[in-house]
């Protein structure tokens, strides 16, 4: 059960940015030496604020971007160069669901075209009839009906579109699905439906999922483990219960107190974070969180902490937490 399905090794992605018209190109590090192990059949959450590199990491793993340096392994095969033809099988096994269901479906294709496209790409199914049947079965497994097959995406609501997008990634029978904020473009009531759907699918199809989200309650509902990202670095990876009960990294603590509570008795004291998020163009030396950290020490400004095991359920990159042990 505890087999690693996907493993990254010092994965790094830099982008060139031109700040002003006459200025030199500068580079920003969107994903900074990420080491992440994803285990078979788990759902791992990747949380963090906007612009922290969650989506970039997801896109690297999906093969949409190639990393600047570092490697990653899928089922112990190195697939850093995912664009190569020999990795076609892996392309089938790793699928991605995108954030915005209004732009992830081609408006000029019917649902059955959209769903049978992947089958044709991977040459699954002997003939049109067999493929149609697979399309129908997959549609039903995401709670849609056969009469939807001949319709166009604009005839559906956001939630239905996201179901179609999920069906598109399921139809090729993948092992690993990357979900890039699958609910953030939807109404709250519809979010719950999609989340329940994802839970069902995961159990029925024995899938491993990477759920990218900025919504901690979504992560709490869905995930087994959660990785917290800050400015391109992973600062904490913990089991869900441990993360919510005793967050290790000071940034995680601040994130948790930002969840709104409906019950006034449950309101936590606001953890104080001072200052702004530093610019990725001009990152601080040492720990990126140091300028805002309530537990800052001298060493934090000089060197960057590495992910270290705190206890059985938690790993964390923080000198203050290391010292406390």
């Amino acid at each position: 059960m505890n087999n690693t399905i996907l493993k990254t090794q010092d994965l790094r992605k830099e982008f060139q940015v031109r700040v002003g018209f006459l200025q030199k190109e500068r580079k920003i590090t969107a994903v900074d030496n990420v080491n992440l192990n994803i285990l078979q059949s788990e759902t791992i959450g990747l949380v963090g604020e906007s612009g922290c590199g969650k989506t970039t990491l997801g896109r690297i793993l999906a093969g949409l971007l190639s990393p600047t340096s570092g490697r990653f392994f899928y089922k112990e095969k190195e697939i850093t160069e995912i664009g190569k033809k020999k990795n076609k099988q892996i392309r089938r096994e790793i699928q991605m669901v995108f954030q915005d269901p209004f732009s992830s479906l081609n408006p000029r294709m019917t649902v059955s075209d959209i769903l049978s496209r992947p089958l044709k790409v991977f040459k699954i199914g002997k003939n049109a009839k067999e493929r149609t049947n697979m399309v129908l079965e997959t549609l039903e497994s995401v709670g849609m009906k056969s009469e939807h097959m001949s319709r166009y995406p604009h005839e559906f609501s956001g939630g239905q579109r996201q179901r179609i997008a999920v069906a598109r990634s399921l139809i090729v029978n993948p092992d690993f699905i990357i979900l890039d904020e699958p609910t953030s473009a939807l109404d709250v009531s519809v979010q719950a439906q999609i989340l329940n759907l994802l839970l069902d699918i995961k159990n029925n199809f024995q899938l491993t999922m990477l759920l990218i989200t900025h919504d901690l309650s979504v992560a709490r509902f869905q995930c087994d483990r959660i990785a917290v990202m800050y400015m391109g670095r992973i600062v904490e990876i913990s089991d869900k219960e441990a993360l919510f009960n005793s967050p290790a990294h000071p940034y995680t603590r601040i994130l948790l107190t930002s969840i709104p509570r409906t019950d006034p008795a449950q309101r936590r004291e606001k953890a104080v974070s001072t200052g702004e998020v530093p610019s990725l163009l001009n990152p601080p030396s040492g720990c990126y969180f140091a300028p805002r950290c309530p537990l800052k020490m001298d060493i934090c400004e000089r060197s960057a902490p590495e992910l270290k095991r705190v206890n059985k359920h938690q790993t964390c990159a923080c000198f203050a937490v290391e010292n406390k042990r």
Partner: protein
Amino acid sequence: MAFSLKRKYDDLEQEISGLPVGSYSQLVFKKFLKHKLACLGAVVLITLIIFTFFGPLFVETAYDDMDFSAIFAPPLSENHFLGTDEIGHDVFVRIMYGGRISLLVGIVSSVVSTIIGLIIGLISGFLGGIWDELLMRFVDVMLSIPLFPVLLILSLVFGSGVFSIIMVLTVFGWMRVTRLVRGMTLSLRESEYVMASKTMGQNQVMIILKHILPNVIPIVIVTTTLNLSYAILSESSLSYLGLGIQPPMPSWGNMLQGSMSYILGTSTGHNPWWLTFFPGFLIFITVLNVNFLGDGLRDALDPKFVSES
């Protein structure tokens, strides 16, 4: 399990029979038929093409036959249905012959330049990087060439004729389409359905054909119809400059051009309005109906468009 699968297959048969029948192209055709103006446009254009291409076969008068007994004969006069011009050319015959050339020049040059523009725009927008840079600078160069001096030189090099005018209109007509298509391709390339397609390892040619082209085509159709009217009209001004159709061979454009000097009446006291009216009217009818046709095609290709009837 076997039972449930069986049930699904049975359902499938029934459900498929209940779907709106027909392939994508059949559905587009059905939608097009519902668009009345577009059907009118198609019928009128086909009629015009038949009239101009096959009409001359049934008429004995040639376009350069002169009837000196009937100069500036008005329409509906004996032997000359639409009248004659200053040297006794039969206007009706010349309209048919002229239509051959005008329609040929208009349709061929606008279609070919649109296809060239479409292909270059798709390549430029989709590949990006150095290809985009090179192709777009080339477009800039083409757009900044002052047309008329070049045309005068070209007319010396290639001489006049239908072929050279089609070539000139094509060579100088594709850039707007390219810019338009490139812009759309740039934004479509970043859309999430193209991303999704990439994660599946779909190859680039198929991405262009399946995802980008269908979304670009409607706009391109509209541009083609605009280009067609532009081509028919430019043909006349180019012919005037000596590149293109030379008298006595008629085209709608040069017939219109030729009648300009009589528009206020002649020194002999004639007022040959028919020389201006008939070629002008036919150009107008053609351009109008091409636009109807283009609108109908665009709507028929758009799945979001549902006709009101």
